[in-house]
């Protein structure tokens, strides 16, 4: 189980203060149900629809975002754990959408329906950030938590390798 830091307010405070966090470089506040998953803050409150709901239990990876640089399933990460956090979604991965992975995804025409691809790209970005030349085995290990029902896995592997090559 993931440890979730307590957000019990200091003595004398009856209402929790609003949670402040940074999303794609913009400061945001949240004062709703602290147990709400980050996914619904992004989708319903901020209208950042690139982060997808696929399973709600961390099994499909469609909601993957970066929290303080690490890949996180937004459907499981509760708002109460995000005070001061820096969140990056697919919309904020690159200012013009030209991250090497995004370019490679287009060059290889990876997406079919496209629904899982935001999560796949966000996961792959953290893989490349720590491993500049991932092997098939590295890719399989990093990406196995993501489901693509259209079956774009072979092209995802090719695109990650192409992006790694491009980033050299």
């Amino acid at each position, binding site marked *: 189980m993931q440890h979730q830091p307590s957000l019990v307010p200091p003595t004398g405070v009856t209402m929790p203060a609003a949670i402040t966090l940074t999303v794609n470089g913009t400061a945001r506040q949240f004062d*709703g*149900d602290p147990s*709400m*998953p980050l996914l*619904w803050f992004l*989708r*319903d*409150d901020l*209208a*950042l*629809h*690139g982060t*997808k*709901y*696929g*399973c709600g*239990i961390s*099994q*499909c990876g*469609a909601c993957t975002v970066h929290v303080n640089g690490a890949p996180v399933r937004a459907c499981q990460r509760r708002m109460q754990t995000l005070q001061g956090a820096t969140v990056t979604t*697919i*919309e904020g*991965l690159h200012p*013009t*959408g*030209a991250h090497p992975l995004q*370019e490679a995804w*287009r*060059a*290889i*025409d990876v*997406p*079919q*329906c*496209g*629904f*899982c*691809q935001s999560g796949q*790209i966000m996961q792959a970005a953290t893989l490349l950030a720590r491993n500049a030349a991932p092997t098939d085995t590295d*890719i*399989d290990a990093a*990406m*196995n938590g993501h*489901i*693509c*029902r*259209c*079956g*774009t*896995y*072979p*092209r*995802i*592997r*090719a695109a990650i*390798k*192409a*992006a790694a*090559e*491009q980033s050299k």
Partner: protein
Amino acid sequence: MSARRSLPWLRVPAPATVHATTNTRREFLKQLGTGGLLVVAGTVGVRRLEAASASLTAPDTSEAEAWEPHAYIRLDEDGTVTIICHRSEMGQGIRTTMPMIIADEMEADWTRCRVVQALGDEPKYGSQNTDGSTSIRDFLPKYREAGATVRALLEDSAAREWGVAPGDVVAQNGVVRHTASGRTITFGALVRTARTIPMPVAARVRVKTPVERRWEGKTMTSIDLVPMTTGTAVYGADVVLPGMKVAVIARPPVWGGTVVRVDDTLAKQVKGVERIVTIPASPMPGGFLPLGGVAVIASSTWAAMKGRDALRITWDHGPNATYDSAAYKQTLKQSVRQPGQAGRTNGNVAQALAGAARRVSAEYYMPHLSHAQLEPVVAVAHVANGKAEVWAPVQSPMDARKTVAGYLKLDVADVTVHVTLLGGGFGRKSKPDFVCEAALLSREVGAPVRVQWTREDDLRHSYLHSPAAHRLEAGLDASGTVVAWHHRSAYPAIGATFALDVKGAEPDELTNGASDVPWHVPDMQVEICPATAHTRIGWYRSVNAIHHGFAIGSFVDELARTAKKDPADFLLALLGPDRTVDLSTAGLVKPASNYGATWTDHPLDSARARRVVEAVVEQSGWHGPALPRGRGRGIAVHRSFLSYVAMVVEVEVLPDGTVLVPKATVAVDAGFIANPDRARAQMEGAIIMAMSNVLSSEVTFANGRVVQSNFRDYGVARMRAAPRDVRVHLVPSEGLPGGIGEPGVPPACGAIANAIFAATGVRVRELPVGRQLAGWPSRAGVSDAGQ
């Protein structure tokens, strides 16, 4: 909640760029491997779109000012060519393939083309029901003709402007050129004239010859790549209307169940929950109508989900409360041990079996499967003043429109259906039950409503793929040649979802790859046996061809092993001499459907099957060095949706029973293929979907309820098991197109099972493979594995 709104029909895709090389994918990947990334020409940046206004009635201004010379084509005076895609995009690439055919034929400049999604309006566009792998096979001539007609119109317009003969001008990439003088005029500048002159007569409309084509049959970069890789593509749940509520519904756990009592005290205490609405159960069997249940309507998705969890509902589970899929499996197996209704009869199979040197029989079983498309079904509706407007990821917008109209007792003309991108469809989204839910709730609460299904809802209340039992028996002569073929199957029918007292599939449903097998066997009988449905049954990608492909593909391999022959050689012998067969006059019972096509246009052609088998044998290295124990190759061929697909799949089976697929080779004859890269992508995906179907996926029932809940217990193929090497060979053809989206799955199911046998000596006859292979190396009898 933010008021930002995304309006799918006002979205303008980033200018599409042309990547018109004829590189094969393999060459392409080779280029990638040997150096720099081959970047698609043009700018691939994010194009942020202006947030559209919030009025539901805001007209599409481009529509108001532009001119439609054809239902699929609009022209603007500024030169923009708008192509209206009337088929739903669910990953097959139709939003690229249809426009590229039209733009190619009309000599449009691709960088000036944009694509908008059609509203549900079949009188205007023709069939929009995106299933059965029909988009190109039914519409290719219409798309070509549409483009060619508008090209001729623009040429006529230029000729009139210049006072020259139409034969003296030619359209080229967005302009019309006067051949003699070289002067040009843009399509945009011709709109004013073009809209005043008559449409060209049929004789003036000339579809391009193959050498004149610029993109058809070659390569085109998909148009939605930028939105899909930047998070801006609009799927069902991404549509936001002002004042929109979110609904999550508790549906009857058992098909046919009803609400007896609701205690919503706790649900109403959840912050953000606004209303609780009971939706009546639709009369059985329900068809496209909602299951009924209790809806929690809230200001946010999270509140609606929490509210739904807090409901306390007493159900009457109805007549299917004892449905148990393990017991039902035995029922199906008993069914195929008795004679059924014949779907094909050639000769006298009983006599031929009796006279055979050797008889071989086997039974196969495949469980219920769910589409498990990654986007759970979802719909947005706004019903006000006697009109309904919906936005939803639907495969058949016209069915959605008619069903909503019937459900709310509105005129069809008062229902508007906008189609978003589909986050996978696979047949689930051709049933608009969820759209009806949204429409009903919107009317009930007087505000726009998004009905959000959770993953659990999607798995538990789907229209599931039929479980199926098959019994096959063959007679071999002394030389190992098949002389008799007797096939029986039983599975609950899709028809049972739409009519009471349906006791099984119709004999004609066997034409989806069971009765129309291309074998050269003189005495054949294919039968369908009774099976009653106890849950909603529906189409799932490839439909009954999935289990036809698994059972037939496996059985042919078993026969080859029995005859001690190489499975590929045996398959070629079974196909026999090259011949075409019109099965409507040679064995099939009427109506002898052929996927909606005539048998004259699409006869059963054993030569096409032979060629894909030979191609896949050659390209896979089938006759190469033997593989070590634990690895094996399997082969299968299947005709479905008018296309012929052969596969060789190589598996690696780990000692713990895990099955990996390192390599797969596919050969496809689907007639003319308009967009080869998307056809390859469909085949790559078909192998992986077949891996899920064969290896992992199963929906079971206990006490009438679906046992599984989410991807934790509904297994699907993941990256680790997926092929590292996939080769897809497309047979070059100018023939009438067949399907592409579905025909890849059935042969893959057989080929995977056969590869497992080759690797381990274990013949899996009941799916999914699951844990059946755990510890296989220590089992007795595994040494007779094939290659």
